[in-house]
């Protein structure tokens, strides 16, 4: 498997650059993931309406919007997690480094586009085995390689110093915030190029939340981050780019500063200023 550095190099080379909107607004960032006219259906209910956006490489992109507006649905479309649900359908075009996500092998998509969930969901295994699981299913079994990758992932998830003496203890013995960082480590172990996080801090206290925010800030170096959050301060603190969803539509996506200080749409302004009904 490529190291993060190699991956970065590969990414840079294989990027195709259509005339990007969002990417061009964050100078120096190549476009990692593009969505064009994504429609999504749960049965006959259309949850997403023609979503188009570009996720810039090595940036944090945040999605905000009222409950039920389709943020999670869109996030789960990007790594095709919704396919696990019956009776769903996606239309449109999704590209990762220019490659068509919807026709790619699904396990490859999910290895390259990792995901962290709202509720931390460690396996009932040891801390070590949790982080090593992704490596195992991706065919990496050399003990030294696995051990090294586990340590590196835990370090990147800012958990190493807390758990290095109890790697073989059950993950359930960790605190809520630690468990969520363990889930981040598990996702990082397979060196994803994009990391999707769906309200990763919603069950955590402010201190644990702060830790994860700092962590995400550092992870930008390694990977591209897309985060759904209900917490607007959080989006303002960490995101380079913020997209506002409303009723299954992407109302606008722009530099975070612009979204919060000078949004282009009335609905966005109402939402970020708390005037949203």
């Amino acid at each position, binding site marked *: 498997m490529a190291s993060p550095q190699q991956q970065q190099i590969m990414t840079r080379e294989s990027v195709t650059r259509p005339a990007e909107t969002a990417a061009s607004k964050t100078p120096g960032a190549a476009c990692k993931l593009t969505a064009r006219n994504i429609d999504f259906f749960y049965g006959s209910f259309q949850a997403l309406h023609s979503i188009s956006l570009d996720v810039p490489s090595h940036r944090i992109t945040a999605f905000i919007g009222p409950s039920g507006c389709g943020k999670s649905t869109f996030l789960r479309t990007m790594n095709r*997690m919704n396919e696990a649900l019956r009776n769903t359908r996606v239309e449109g075009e999704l590209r990762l480094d220019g490659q068509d996500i919807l026709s790619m092998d699904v396990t490859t998509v999910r290895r390259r586009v990792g*995901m962290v969930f709202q509720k931390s*969901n460690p396996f009932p295994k040891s801390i070590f085995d949790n982080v090593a699981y992704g490596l195992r299913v991706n065919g990496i079994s050399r003990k030294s390689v696995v051990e090294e990758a586990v340590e590196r992932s835990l370090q990147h998830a800012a958990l190493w110093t807390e758990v290095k003496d109890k790697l073989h203890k059950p993950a359930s013995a960790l605190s809520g915030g630690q468990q969520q960082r363990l889930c981040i480590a598990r996702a990082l172990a397979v060196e994803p190029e994009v990391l999707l996080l769906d309200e990763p801090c919603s069950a955590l206290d402010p201190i644990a939340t702060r830790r994860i925010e700092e962590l995400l800030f550092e992870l930008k170096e390694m990977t591209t981050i897309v985060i759904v959050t209900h917490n607007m301060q959080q989006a303002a603190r960490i995101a380079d780019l913020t997209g506002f969803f409303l009723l299954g539509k992407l109302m606008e996506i722009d530099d975070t500063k612009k979204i919060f200080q000078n949004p282009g749409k009335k609905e966005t302004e109402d939402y970020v200023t708390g005037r949203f009904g």
Partner: protein
Amino acid sequence: MASSSIAGSLRHRANRGVLARLRGGDEISYLVTLACAVLIFVVVALIVAKLWGNSQPAIRAFGWDFLRTSRWNPNGGKFGALPFLYGTCVTSAIALLIAVPTGVASAIFLAEMAPPKLSNLLTFLIELLAAVPSVIYGLLGIFMLLPLIRVYLVPALKSTFGFLPLFQGSFYGVSFLSAGLVLAVMVIPFIVSVSREVLLAVPTEQREAALAVGATKWETTWDIVLPYARSGIFGSIFLALARALGETMAVTMVIGNTPKITASLLSPGYSIAAVIANEFAEASGDLYVSSLIFAGLVLFGLTIVINALARILILATSQKAATA
């Protein structure tokens, strides 16, 4: 106004009398449920005491030899239960050997792979099977399973594994193998319906966590879902085993009722439950009756020992899984 009257009744609720408190439910529900729990314990204790007491003549006459000898001679007053113990263990082992893989695989199909409608329909049918009386399974065994075993299974076994002592000798129909197969058919529904429930109860978040790092559907099922459901699946297997060990009617009808210990699964045999059912009504003499009751005590003990071992096994594997 209204709020003050509510406050009044709240105060009233706080210092009401015994009767009112009982009506409130906590105490009375505690007492009723406690009584039921104690009652169950008392019944089990009574059964054990009765079995123990009534088997005293046989225990005094034979002691451990009862479990070590094979002569079952009511006329000569000699009783050794080893062939029955052997038959019970062998038929249950055959049953589990077949029922566990088939049952767990079906449960995986129903819980993880089948479309929900098909899964619900099949589960309904399988749960019906669990309610079929065992005498019907016995008839089914005699009229359907035995001919099939004779025509297809035995020739196939003899031609592939015929060199093993397990499959030598002639086959007349009634046998350990037939009883084991009928038992397997009887216990599969238990394993399937309990295991399916347990698999369905595994949180979606667990599955998604595995899928999200690039695991395939099958890897997710095998690595994550099954281990998560492990203790429940074991539970279903022990339920099945308990049923197989104690099953009387269906086994009596197809095992052959011959108190012999043979290596060949094709030979007729006997089981503890079957011998008690067959001989108890006609047993004459204290020692004979007491020997049958002793056999019952042995069956009871066997069930308890196996259940205890099972619990230890579950505990050990779950601790290992958590620490290793």
